[in-house]
């Protein structure tokens, strides 16, 4: 038996599958099973198949607002982060003295949990927070300003954007730095020989070669942005509802897993749609090579 097992494991054709098995089990247990469970909960009630939970979700007083703010956050945060991360990555890639130190410094917020990040920014913007204290002590304002309030909804929105921007730009940065390092020096030297300098080099050589990295960074960041929740919860409370937050409230405050799952399924559909858009419209590596 042992010998037979060894033979089985040892064959070149089967070995990769054995090595993939732990990952597959992990994905199966922690990702696929809950996923199907959620889909089941969203569509199945006591009386079998039903769309009632989706009807309940759509007729929820906060649904439209949650949908609106989820998209607003995503379309504000993602491009902003992409531009900042790209600028930082290009800068780091010049390899100036201490660039590695800055890479670690920029990546630092990655280690902070999102709720903790939200609370850090809350301590800045809250009524008796750092910002008000500084402005007051400088004599710029006479009394503390309510930044985070339903009367100041734009500022509340921007504070969430700022906190997310600070917290999660590093993930894009790390992906782009890795992508930049994979670009062969040959291309850059060839470009320089042909007279491409500065912006031209970035626009015509680096960016097209960076497309695969940009694509992964965009997919990851967009999916995470759609799930933004803890930072919103900490800074904006009930002022700007988001889909992920509503799912959480339905699950843990109102204890209806069915409606919570309906929200989760909606988020999943949006995420898949966005991923498809990126895959479809941001060319893959082979297209870049051909181009």
């Amino acid at each position, binding site marked *: 038996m042992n010998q037979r097992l060894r033979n089985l494991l040892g064959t070149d054709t089967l070995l990769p599958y054995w090595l993939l098995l732990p990952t597959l089990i992990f994905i199966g247990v922690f990702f696929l099973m809950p996923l199907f469970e959620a889909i089941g909960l969203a569509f199945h009630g006591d009386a079998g198949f039903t769309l009632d939970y989706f009807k309940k979700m759509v007729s929820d007083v906060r649904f439209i607002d949650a949908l609106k703010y989820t998209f607003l956050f995503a379309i504000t945060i993602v491009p902003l982060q992409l531009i900042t991360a790209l600028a930082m990555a290009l800068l780091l890639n010049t390899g100036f003295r201490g660039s590695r130190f800055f890479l670690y410094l920029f990546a630092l917020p990655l280690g902070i949990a999102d709720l903790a990040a939200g609370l850090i920014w809350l301590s800045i913007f*809250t009524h008796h927070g750092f910002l008000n204290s500084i402005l007051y002590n400088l004599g710029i304002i006479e009394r503390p300003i309510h930044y985070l309030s339903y009367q*100041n909804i734009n500022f509340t929105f921007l504070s969430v954007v700022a906190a997310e921007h600070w917290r999660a730009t590093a993930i894009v940065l790390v992906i782009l730095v890795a992508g930049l390092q994979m670009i062969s020096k040959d291309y850059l030297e060839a470009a320089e020989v042909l007279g491409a300098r500065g912006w031209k080099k970035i626009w015509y050589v680096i960016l097209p070669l960076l497309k695969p990295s940009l694509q992964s960074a965009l997919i990851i960041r967009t999916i995470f942005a759609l799930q933004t929740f803890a930072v919103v919860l900490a800074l904006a409370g009930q002022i700007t509802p988001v889909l992920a937050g509503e799912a959480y*409230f339905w699950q843990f*405050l109102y204890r*209806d897993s069915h409606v919570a799952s309906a929200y989760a399924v909606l988020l999943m559909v949006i995420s898949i749609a966005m991923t498809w858009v990126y895959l479809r419209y941001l060319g893959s590596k082979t297209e870049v090579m051909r181009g």
Partner: protein
Amino acid sequence: MKQLILLGVLAFGLLASAADITWMSTQFTPIAEGEFVRNQILAPFAEETGISVDLLTAEYAEFTSRIEAEYEAGSGEIAVLCGLHGHLASFAYALADVSGVTPGGTINPTLMAKGQIGGKQVYIPLMQATYLMVLNKKALDYLPEGADIWALTYDDLLQWAKNIYEATGEQKLGIPAGPKSLLHRFIHGYLYPSFTGYQVLAFDSAAAVDMWNYMQELWQYVNPAAPTWDAMDTPLLSEEVWIAWDHTSRVKEAIVQRPNDFIAVPSPAGPAGRGFISVLAGLAIPKTSPDPEAAAKLIQYLTTPEVQVKILQGTGFFPAVAEAAGAVPAGALQILAKGVSAQAASPDAIVCFIPGGIPDEYKKIYKDTFYKFVIQGEPVDLEFLREQATRLRELYIEAGAPYPAPDGK
């Protein structure tokens, strides 16, 4: 080796049977509270009477199935029960009449009457909690003429908050309206009963429309950060607000830190009366109790003024026994206790119980209505109120649950 194991099993068996009676409770579930009750309350009881009590804390679901199982089996292990009014009321059939048990102190007859269900004394009140108002003494300078802080009305509150705003330019009234706040309790147990007389039945009445219009007006003077607050102790301490409403345990910290600056007073009264929630926990004896006599002794002990004060200090629950209210040590707890008893003794009281036996979606119905009319400031729309009211009643009908007091008298 085998002998050792056998010895261990024997010793365990002896230990397990060492307790004379078992006390099952849905309260004291936090570990620290449970330990407090075991060491500070039950250990002295064992010394005094020779009866050792094993406290078994349980979540409501476990509590339910255990009582049902023992009742159906016709015999049980559990000698005494501790649960909230709603927990015990739903098992009235399985509980013995405790009218023969003499409490260790005087229990207010209105409080005692809460434990009477279908002419039977189902439980003896043990302890209570509630939600009330906490004032910073600085606010007193702006109190409207003729208003009495011990008997405020919602009109007084509006005028008061307005006076403060006009004098200081700041919105010093605080209502917790954050995602994890107890805002829903304020709406269903305070606003609704005070304005309409009911928690559920008058959800879409003309009085409810007036109430929402009142809230829109009041909201102008509520601190705009309210939707980010889950508890009012921090804003009270930072003086972002001078007048706040919240659960006793969520304002306690402010008074503990600065007992000289704050007063706890009853919640305001509306046109229908002074609606407030009474979180009441009681002690009951199951019909299947193996030792009803020891159970009665424990109940007597737990309702003595000294033990009642201990419970307040260790768990933050307020006494049910009148003598204990005066015996609370000076300081923060006394300030809170004074507010709690003043609220309970209000002549215009409308005592509300927390809904039980229905899905938690009911909280969302109250909060959503608040979100739409008050936070979003949309005009009060009777059609929307009707839809929400229908859904709210459906929750009770689908679950076959009775309306909580004052609706389901």
